[in-house]
């Protein structure tokens, strides 16, 4: 109701502003029409209180049929608006098709069913699966990101070949993994994906507000490629086609494009470059639960 009222008030305000230009007679007429429009919009829907007085909890005075008459439902018959599906459904597809048939003395055509009956029924019917609720496939899962991780945060990688390295966070990808870069010149960490759970977020942030990350850097770009098409048994089963990973030229150009922007920001903060070069380690007397990152 409040929304409708506001909408009604806005409309006359806009109309009045536009109409200051033409002659005075016109705005008078238009104001009258505006008033009608306003009244129509302003009238709130009034719902009648229950027409069925309560005798005891859950028990009304009037029966179903009596209530039908009291509510005048004979006058109020609504049909649901025709949905798009229903509109589409009106066109019934053809059940049979006439197909031409070759050969002598065959009668030129046959009437063929478009949708045929199944040619096989299993001996035991597959039991009906129980209803499940809210079991979504991975692609539809909700991706969460810790509040401490924002674009530009320095993260400490804990697993993988780059464990202990301090790295700059760029963005979260579609599958929820974090896109991260060394930058490469500083600590030999390329544009890479990292998992949120295996990362410590420090409170040090680099200002990445204007950095443009190319849009083709998605999960598909970073996914590991597997080439295996043994149409026939290979002579040497252990000889996989892709043994060594080769850095493609596209990766190099993307790395340069992103890193050049970030390095400029890193240089502005004193000692940040050396910080990113160093690795994180624990020593005697250092307890992670007592450290402030």
């Amino acid at each position: 109701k409040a929304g409708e009222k506001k909408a009604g008030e806005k409309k006359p305000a806009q109309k009045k502003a536009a109409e200051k230009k033409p002659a005075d007679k016109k705005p008078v007429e238009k104001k009258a029409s505006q008033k009608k429009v306003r009244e129509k919009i302003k009238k709130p829907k009034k719902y009648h209180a229950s027409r069925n007085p309560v005798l005891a909890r859950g028990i009304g005075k009037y029966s179903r049929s009596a209530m039908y008459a009291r509510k005048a439902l004979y006058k109020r018959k609504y049909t649901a608006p025709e949905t798009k599906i229903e509109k589409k459904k009106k066109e019934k597809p053809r059940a049979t098709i006439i197909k031409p048939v070759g050969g002598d003395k065959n009668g030129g055509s046959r009437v063929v069913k478009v949708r045929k009956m199944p040619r096989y029924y299993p001996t035991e019917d597959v039991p009906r699966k129980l209803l499940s609720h809210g079991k979504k496939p991975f692609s539809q899962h909700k991706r969460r990101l810790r509040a401490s991780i924002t674009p530009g945060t320095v993260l400490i990688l804990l697993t993988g070949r780059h464990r202990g390295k301090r790295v700059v966070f760029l963005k979260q990808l579609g599958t929820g993994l974090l896109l991260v870069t060394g930058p490469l010149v500083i600590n030999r960490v390329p544009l890479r994906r990292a998992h949120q759970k295996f990362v410590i977020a420090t409170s040090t942030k680099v200002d990445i507000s204007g950095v443009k990350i190319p849009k083709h850097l998605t999960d598909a770009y970073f996914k590991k490629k597997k080439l295996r098409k043994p149409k026939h048994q290979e002579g040497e089963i252990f000889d996989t086609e892709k043994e060594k990973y080769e850095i493609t030229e596209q990766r190099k150009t993307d790395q340069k494009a992103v890193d050049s922007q970030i390095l400029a920001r890193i240089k502005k903060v004193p000692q940040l470059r050396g910080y990113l070069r160093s690795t994180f380690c624990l020593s005697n007397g250092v307890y992670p639960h007592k450290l402030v990152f």
Partner: protein
Amino acid sequence: VFKRFVEIGRVAFISFGRHAGKLVAIVDVIDQNRALVDGPCSGVRRQAMPFKCMQLTDFVLKFPHSARQKCVRRAWEKENINEKWAATRWAKKIEAREKKAKMTDFDRYKVMKAKKMRNRIIKHEIKKLQKKTTKKVKKTEKKEK
């Protein structure tokens, strides 16, 4: 042997409890274990407090026993206890400890680099002095010969 005594007006530092880390003045002694204590300039209401959680400082204020809060406050501000306390080594150590605990990872790195540089400078100077003394010793040995 003992230099700091529990007396009326002694400023004490509360070491644990709800008011840990604050300064209070002892207004009166209740019994063997408790004192009536008041900290108008440090946010501690007038209350009984066991001696166990108090650690005596070097400061003593002058006011009569069971003086009301206004008097305690006046004496406190006259002696400027808050500033004197901040200047003591005790308070500075506490502050340093807090800062160390709040250090972030980046801060720790910066501290490490600063320490390294400092130690390098110190070692350099020491080595210079060592060289001087060895040279002197060598010279005197030669002369004796």
